[in-house]
């Protein structure tokens, strides 16, 4: 187990390192620079700016300098928000994104599994039908349409919840709902499919014939085995919560990481992009690692022997 963990950790760090290098060089290959604006700078001014920010040196040197600063825990100052350290920007923007994503993940897993179990259990009834109606709409409705409809209903018409901004708990409800809808639907469908498959297995019939109660068979015997494909989904779902949050953060005007990430790339704010890549990359890779390790907890058969 320890050696498996070490191997996975090593792989994860290599992945992150590659991601950072690739992003650094791809970003620099892209045309345009951080200080290209409406007006064209005179050559001397441009050279001065480049020298000040170390942009005049060869790319590999710049990369090594960035790594050196990183090792000291310095992510440098943003080019766009002049004088503001990237670390401060990220630490300001991280909490809203984490709260938004965390709640959305929690709600989508709990409600999704519940909905899936319900519809598999009551297969063919109106309960199954309505659960799958929710699931299909969650998968096929674009995020911005969900947001619009929720805002129209709960803010414009009913006046219960604020339409945007990130201030009190009330203002968090609509963004979290919007963000969790799609993963909820995906999890519900997956749970239903996989549970239906498991319910046909011999050992479930055995459990029934031993006289165990229906709820016990369902939750104790069937659900545990049917959750493996669902756990597999959690990696990509967490990733999609991170990417999905761009749209939600934009629509609801939430000062989170998502908006910064997109604008920093458009602004060619190199230090901020690199900082964001570091944060997002670590989160994504960590999620995959956790998912990998969780397999073993749910299904002892795939412990360790899984090939990386």
């Amino acid at each position, binding site marked *: 187990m320890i050696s498996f963990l070490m191997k996975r950790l090593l792989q994860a760090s290599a992945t992150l390192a*590659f991601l950072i290098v690739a992003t650094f060089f791809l970003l620099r290959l892209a045309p345009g620079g951080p200080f290209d604006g409406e007006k064209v700078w005179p050559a001397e001014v441009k050279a001065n700016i480049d020298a000040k920010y170390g942009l005049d040196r060869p790319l590999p040197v710049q990369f090594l300098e960035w790594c050196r600063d990183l090792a000291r825990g310095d992510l440098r100052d943003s080019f766009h928000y002049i004088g503001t350290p990237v670390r401060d920007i990220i630490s300001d923007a991280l909490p809203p994104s984490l709260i938004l994503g965390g709640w959305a993940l929690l709600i989508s897993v709990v409600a999704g599994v519940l909905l899936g179990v319900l519809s598999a259990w009551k297969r063919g009834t109106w309960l199954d039908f309505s659960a799958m109606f929710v699931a299909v709409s969650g998968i096929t409705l674009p995020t911005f349409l969900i947001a619009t409809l929720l805002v129209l209903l709960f803010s414009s018409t009913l006046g219960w919840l604020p339409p945007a901004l990130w201030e009190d708990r009330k203002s968090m409800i609509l963004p979290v709902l919007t963000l969790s809808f799609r993963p909820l639907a995906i999890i519900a469908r997956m749970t239903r499919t996989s549970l239906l498959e498991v319910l046909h297995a011999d050992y479930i019939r055995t459990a029934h014939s031993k006289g165990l109660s229906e709820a016990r068979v369902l939750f104790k015997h069937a659900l545990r085995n049917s959750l493996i494909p669902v756990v597999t989904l959690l990696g990509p779902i967490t990733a999609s919560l991170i990417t999905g949050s761009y749209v939600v953060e934009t629509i609801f005007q939430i000062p989170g990481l998502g908006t910064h990430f997109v604008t920093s790339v458009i602004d060619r704010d190199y230090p901020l992009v690199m900082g964001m890549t570091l944060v997002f990359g670590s989160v994504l890779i960590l999620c995959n690692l956790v998912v990998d390790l969780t397999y073993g907890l749910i299904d002892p058969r795939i412990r360790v022997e899984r090939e990386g």
Partner: protein
Amino acid sequence: MRNRYLSDKRFVGSAILLGTLCLMALLASMIAPFPYDEVGVGPNLAAPAPGFLMGTDVLGRDLFSRVLFGARVSLAVGFCTAGFSLILGTLTGALAGFFGGRTDRMIMAVVDIFYIFPMLLLAILLSLLFGRGFFGIFISIGMTTWVTQARLVRALVLQARELPYVEAGRAIGLTPVRILFQHILPNLMGPMIVSLTFQIPNNILTESFLSFIGLGLQPPYASWGTLANEGFRGMLSYPHLMIFPGLALFLTMLGFHFLGDSLRDILDPKSQVGSHTNP
């Protein structure tokens, strides 16, 4: 064979829905009451009314015409990028799976590199590199999605190459290339078509997402995502600007969802392929 298609309500329904949508996109210039980019054909920001079925936008352009022409862009991007990832993914996946060994390791190393990149970051970086024209969008979506196809085809070919008909092909002295392209790949058409029907809507959604955050096609083109981007600032007062492009996108997704589901049951009953693994 024909009966299996026609007796599946989901297939018939989604085929009619998607067929209508595609036809409307193709005939957009004939159906649309106004040119999609003509400013001031009506009052600014008018709500839907008989003359302007979906209302007008901030410049007084007819939203119905814009959504119709947006269908062209959105559908074209979806089909072309899915075709691109189908060809590239199938070719690389088939070679990796069939020849194994060093070929496999080299191809899969490249695939893994693309796989670990957060999709959005890669798409954004590529769209910066290749510009925001049709080609740039095509490359940035195609390059991020072909790896899924490559992994699928590799797994399928790995299974297929152990089957008796492949061995029979070898026994009668067919070249490996011929076995792969004339015998194995045609046998995998079912799962590949199914994965394509899930890939297309995913790509359409990705394009709308890129356009929504402002990295999509630049004017004069307008996809549904661009339209939603133009609309979201006035969401509270002028919700029609968001709702109609969103609705068009929703109908397309719905059609492909049921088409994929029914095709999976018809063509590839055992498969695990689905839109659900690729949120």
